[in-house]
């Protein structure tokens, strides 16, 4: 019986406690620097698309919300013809970012993507692509990759040894 009165008194005292609710739209929520929010496609420092359309993100995605189609330009550089993320399915796990070999796909601290129509949550490549490098400022995949593309031959990448002449017997 006394414990009931004690409970009532303790609950009443909570009237003078500070409230824990954050008035969200007026008081913005704190988002950690590594917050996994809206997905973007970044560009390399030269302004080219980083994505090489390797499909690894689509494979890693546990909910299959990423769809893309690889293609090549005249110089032999691979890029996605289309790149589509269905954010109504995305669970923001960040596996695509981990899988990406070129730091192209990245998750940003932004989660405010409410839409009145579900269809509007399907983002196309032009919605995803940003004019920036994202979290990795200096990185350019094509400059370090040992792949021949227009204007850059084998052995001309950064830190890349000239190709071995396999007809030469010298060590």
């Amino acid at each position, binding site marked *: 019986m006394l414990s009931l009165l004690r409970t*009532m008194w*303790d609950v*009443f005292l*909570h009237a003078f406690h500070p*409230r824990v609710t954050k*008035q969200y739209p007026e008081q913005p929520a704190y988002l950690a620097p590594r917050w996994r929010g809206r997905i973007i496609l970044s560009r390399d420092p030269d302004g080219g698309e980083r994505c090489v359309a390797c499909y690894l993100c689509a494979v890693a995605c546990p909910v299959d919300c990423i769809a893309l189609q690889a293609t090549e330009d005249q110089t032999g550089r691979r890029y996605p013809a289309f790149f589509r993320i269905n954010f109504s399915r995305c669970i923001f796990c960040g596996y695509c970012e981990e899988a990406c070999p070129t730091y192209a796909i990245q998750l940003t601290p932004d989660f405010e993507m409410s839409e009145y129509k579900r269809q509007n949550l399907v983002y196309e490549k032009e919605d995803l692509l940003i004019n920036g490098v994202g979290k990795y400022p200096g990185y350019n995949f094509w400059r370090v990759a040992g792949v021949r593309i227009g204007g850059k031959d084998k052995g001309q990448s950064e830190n890349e040894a000239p190709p071995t002449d396999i007809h030469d017997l010298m060590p």
Partner: protein
Amino acid sequence: MTTYHPIIAIIGILFVVLNLAALLIWVERRLLALWQDRYGPNRVGPFGLLQPLADAIKLFAKEDWIPPFADKWVFILAPAIVMMTALLAFVVIPVSPGVVVSDLNIALLFFLGMSSLGVYSVALGGWASDNKYSLLGGLRASAQMLSYEVFMGLSLMGVVILAGSFNLSDIVFAQKKLWFVIPQFLGFLLFLIAGVAETRRLPFDLPEAESELIAGYHSEYSGMKFGMFFVGEYVGITLISALITVLFFGGWLGPVLPGVIWFLIKMGFFLCFFILLRASLPRPRFDQLMAWGWKLMLPLALANLLVTGAVVLSLHHG
């Protein structure tokens, strides 16, 4: 007093009571939130005051569904009864001298009768829904309200002995020197507990018990029929608070301020107390509830009645 006075009282009391019941929905949610360190509804209008209006619009816009397996007419009748009996009981509540719809000489008995009739709404609603959870809720409600009705009436008899009248205005006038809460403290506690049980509020909300019975007797109700049960509950709380004020805390009596204001202040205090009960107390088991009612409350009420009667007799005839 002129002849049109009751009409004005009817309109005034009906207006105030129904609006108060609607406002209580907001007050309850805000107060519960305050005691749980939250904000509660604060978006619709200033301080969220228009929240009941939004709720009402939502309830009216919802599908008013009657289950095909339900007993149709009883199903429709049940929510009307709860509102009807609660509002009818307000007829006898004197808000301030003369401001009363009907100054019955058996006002207290009339109130007890009306609150007993209120059981029908819950029992019939649970029965007509033809659903096991509703039936269990209705069953619990009738058992609970029957057993708490008994000592509710008995706990008030002490007040009647002291005032020498069943008329609520006379009871208030008899408290000019001393509020009845002091000589009748036990009676006040018993009536408070019985009142909570009578309005089916936490901690005595076993007929609803959303964690056990979905929503108990009104599981199958939707739209404004559910709204009737909902508002009926708040009218019931208002009624019990008003009665506690009248019977134990001197009704409209108080210095400086006009009587109506005093009445509303005292009533508001008990309304908040009801909400505090909901915020803090857990729900007992059903057998505990019944055991409490019959084995503890009833003997206490009888003892209170006996002692009060003996003391009054010895003072008057000794």
